[in-house]
């Protein structure tokens, strides 16, 4: 046990690269516990959200070809795709806005605003923003 250690120290002092600790994660580690799985689901929400935004970009672009070339998506497949994306996007919102209570450290009149209040404000903002955007998307329609 002692001899290789000395060898390593000699190597280190001779300018060789230091040994780097590489944590080994077994394949499928995130399937072993519900908590790990939900963490990975949270990270994965980026994929369906990205796909839906690319669709939105495509729908904007479709309007560039004039009224004759424009047709809004309405297929059952598109609706199913949107429902799946909506589930992931909502999960992202709930986890991300809940984290705000941990991340944001706000002091008001010398007192720390409790995390629960910050999270409540975030969810309130989510509601207000949703109502405003829905009002624009529906209110300007004919």
């Amino acid at each position, binding site marked *: 046990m002692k001899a290789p250690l000395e060898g390593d120290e000699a190597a280190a002092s001779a300018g060789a690269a230091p040994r780097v600790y590489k944590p080994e994660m077994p394949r499928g580690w995130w399937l072993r516990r519900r908590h790990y799985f939900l963490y990975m689901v949270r990270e994965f929400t980026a994929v369906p959200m990205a796909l839906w*935004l690319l669709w939105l970009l495509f729908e904007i672009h479709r309007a560039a070809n004039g009224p004759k070339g424009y047709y*809004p998506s309405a297929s059952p497949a598109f609706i199913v795709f949107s429902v799946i994306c909506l589930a992931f996007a909502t999960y992202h919102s709930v986890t991300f806005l809940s984290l705000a209570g941990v991340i944001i450290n706000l002091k008001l009149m010398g007192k720390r605003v409790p995390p629960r209040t910050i999270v409540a404000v975030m969810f309130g903002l989510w509601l207000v923003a949703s109502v405003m955007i829905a009002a624009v998307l529906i209110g300007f329609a004919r």
Partner: protein
Amino acid sequence: MNYDSAKRNKPAISHLFWWFLFANGGGLTALVLPVHILVQGVLGPLGVVHVVDRNYDTWISVLGNPIVKLYLLALISLAFFHFAHRLRYFLVDLGVPAARTLPAQVLFYGGAVVVTAVTIWVLLTTAPLSFG
């Protein structure tokens, strides 16, 4: 040791930059994306409510508004910087250490830059801004 502590005290400007984009992309999508998907992706196509993008005339007039253009650019661009960061670490977690390397960073954040450029192009060529 002195060298190490000096190095540690230096503000990590690049981290700050990417984290700013990551956090704001995450926050903005958290606040506004579900309602877009619900209204434009589910309720509109089902015909439950009338939505601006169901009709060419209303869609093009909304898209011609410069505030809407700025909003869509901020939403799509910041979202993709958020996604780039998330997906890179998602791959690391899945056991792909290569996702940490510089080429992977160039690929993922470069992808977000490309999406931003395409978004600018799409917004400027669809219902072009007219002054007068």
